[in-house]
């Protein structure tokens, strides 16, 4: 079995990737603008609900409960979905999921497939697998279409193309849709997408979707969206394949009363997103004649195995933690090297891969706690980050000298005389690196600090020296 999370295993470390990205001022401007707008809308939509904290508590508890009984809920979903005419498949890893989906599409003699936004298919690298099998995947979500036509990578869970502005989108559409004329208002661009995709919706025989929730009790799938491309993809094709992680299960239909309140308000700051589609197996005379669900593990059972961090799987992919994160706001999503960016990506990506890759991600945080504050299912991301940092160090991948440094610091700081001596030494040592009271380009271990931060030079006189001098003068 080999777990794959997009291209995360081969991505450069977070600090290396971020260094280049933060120099792209256009990208930073786009990301800052978008996250600021969503944050404001989210705060307003959440502030409107007097029972927000109670909803968070319920959401958290439902998810935690589901994980504790996940095997029995998975089987209950399988039974209910099968009874309603659906076919349930199980995939251990990305390759297995891709080959199941490819097999189904081949079975219907189709060389094209329409897709509605699914992060899970980005995780498994489904599009590349389909193309290798001679099948053309057509992304239908506006942002995903921008990413696909622009040969780009998603940078946000909910608004994957937020790093692009309207002029960039216009340029991509002009070229790839072979248009002669196109305005640059968001309206013009959306209409271009409507025209481009309409014919495909009416013609293509296979659709692929993700799922926001799988209801164990009824075997229903719930998909949350805005544009109507999702409704097209799950309704019009003859065959529908839904790819979903095993953690998307919720126990009962009633539980939607919690998640359909917390998800839209957290994700886009809307009271309700324009469309939710719910379907159960196949329906007579309505929609696809054939329905498949692929239940994907791909490392989720790795995450589940550590009780300290398994609540990572509570995530409902709202993206609120990305928008709230001061690190994400500066770097955007690409720096994380994973299709799951931001705070949730920093804990999910390495865990899915059993901590074997993406070890720099648990450090891509200032631990300020803004992510935990906004999380609608109360995932304690800062605590998990710290736990994962410990794991990285245990595996010998962490900052190797960290332990030695900490011990030395402890030795120095617990004795006034030793501290004084160290400060004296430091004052001498800093001379080559000091400019205007600031230290630049320190060598060795300290280089990591001065590469990205300001550091005041050790002053001429320490507080202890000043105090001693003052006492002396008084005497």
């Amino acid at each position, binding site marked *: 079995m080999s777990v794959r999370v997009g291209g995360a295993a081969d991505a450069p470390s977070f600090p290396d990737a971020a260094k280049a990205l933060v120099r792209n001022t256009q990208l930073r401007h*786009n990301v800052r*603008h*978008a996250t600021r707008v969503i944050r404001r809308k989210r705060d307003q939509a959440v502030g409107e609900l*007097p*029972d927000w904290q*109670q909803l968070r*508590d*319920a959401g958290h*508890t439902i998810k935690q409960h589901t994980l*504790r*009984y*996940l*095997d*029995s809920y998975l089987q209950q979903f399988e039974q209910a979905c099968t009874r*309603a005419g659906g076919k349930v*498949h*199980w*995939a*251990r890893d990305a390759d297995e999921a891709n080959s199941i989906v490819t097999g189904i599409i081949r079975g219907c003699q189709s060389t094209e497939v329409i897709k509605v936004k699914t992060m899970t298919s980005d995780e498994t690298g489904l599009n590349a697998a389909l193309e290798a099998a001679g099948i053309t995947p057509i992304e*239908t979500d506006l942002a995903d279409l921008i990413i696909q036509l622009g040969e780009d990578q998603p940078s946000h869970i909910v608004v994957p*193309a*937020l790093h692009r502005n*309207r002029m960039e989108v216009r340029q991509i559409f002009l070229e790839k849709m072979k248009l002669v004329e196109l305005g640059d208002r*968001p309206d013009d*661009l959306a209409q271009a997408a*409507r025209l481009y995709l*309409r014919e495909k*919706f*009416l013609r293509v025989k296979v659709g692929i979707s993700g799922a926001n929730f799988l209801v164990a009790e*009824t075997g229903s799938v719930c998909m949350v969206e*805005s*544009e*109507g491309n999702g*409704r*097209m993809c799950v309704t*019009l094709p003859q065959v529908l394949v839904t790819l979903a992680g*095993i953690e998307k299960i919720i*126990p009962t239909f*009633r539980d939607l*009363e*919690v998640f*359909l*309140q917390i998800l839209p308000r957290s994700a*886009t700051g*809307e*009271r*309700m*997103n*324009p*469309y939710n*589609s719910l*379907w*159960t197996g196949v329906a*007579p005379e*309505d929609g696809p004649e054939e329905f498949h669900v692929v*239940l994907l593990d791909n490392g989720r*059972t790795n995450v*589940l*195995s550590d*009780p300290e961090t398994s609540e990572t799987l509570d995530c409902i992919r709202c993206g609120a933690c990305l928008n709230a994160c001061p690190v994400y706001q500066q770097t955007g999503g690409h720096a994380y090297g994973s299709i799951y960016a931001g705070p949730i990506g920093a804990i999910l990506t390495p865990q899915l891969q059993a901590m074997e890759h993406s070890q720099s991600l648990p450090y891509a945080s200032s631990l300020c706690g803004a992510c935990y504050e906004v999380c609608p299912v109360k995932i304690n991301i800062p605590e998990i980050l710290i736990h994962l940092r410990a794991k990285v160090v245990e595996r010998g991948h962490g900052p190797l000298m960290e332990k030695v440094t900490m011990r030395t610091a402890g030795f120095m700081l617990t004795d006034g005389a030793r501290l004084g001596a160290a400060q004296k030494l430091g004052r001498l040592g800093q001379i080559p690196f000091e400019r205007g009271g600031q230290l630049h380009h320190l060598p060795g271990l300290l280089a990591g600090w001065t590469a990205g931060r300001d550091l005041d030079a050790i002053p001429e006189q320490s507080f202890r020296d000043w105090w001693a001098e003052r006492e002396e003068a008084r005497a």
Partner: protein
Amino acid sequence: MTAREEILTRVRRSTISASSSRQAEYATIPRHYEQRGGRDLVARIDLFTDRLLDYGCGVHGCAGNEIASSIGHILRERNKRRVLVTGDIPEEWLLAGFEFAQAGGLSYDALNEFEGVISRCALAIAVTGTIVLRHTPTEGVRALSLIPDYHLCCVFENQVEELVPEGIQRMSRFAGSPITTIAGPSATADIEMTRIKGVHGPRTLDVLLISDENAQEGAS
């Protein structure tokens, strides 16, 4: 081992796996959020109307004996003539002067030729401005309210619940049918977080709110 067995085995290593305690534990989930609204009918309809307007819907009201004239008025204002109707729209709601058609047996391409669709709904939720469609051949298959560019939805005032939990409870009675919930016309904010009305679903949504004390309960 099959993939199914292997995944379930891996899951079981970390879970409790005793479905007898599952039920008991599920019952203890804290649900201290609001489950019943306190607004009367008038306040509920005001709230629903406010939400619909916020989404950019057209909102109209009429009494039970004015439905046909109201529908005619709205369609003329929108300049829609060739319009599909779902099977639960009574004939007496449809005035002469329009080309109304039932969708039965029409291909998707044929549906695409129509200017709009008139449907009813199963229920609505005031606080989020949500309309819930239950899809049956009579109440309209999914494609019907999706492909045409214009949707006029008729909602009886007594179908409007106040809160999401109240709406979900009503929906659970027909959870096996395909369901679509609609909150305003199709929209996106994918480009610079600017909300744009109308991408792939109907670009215009009108709601006709019908007050009728003798009206039958909704399709549910």
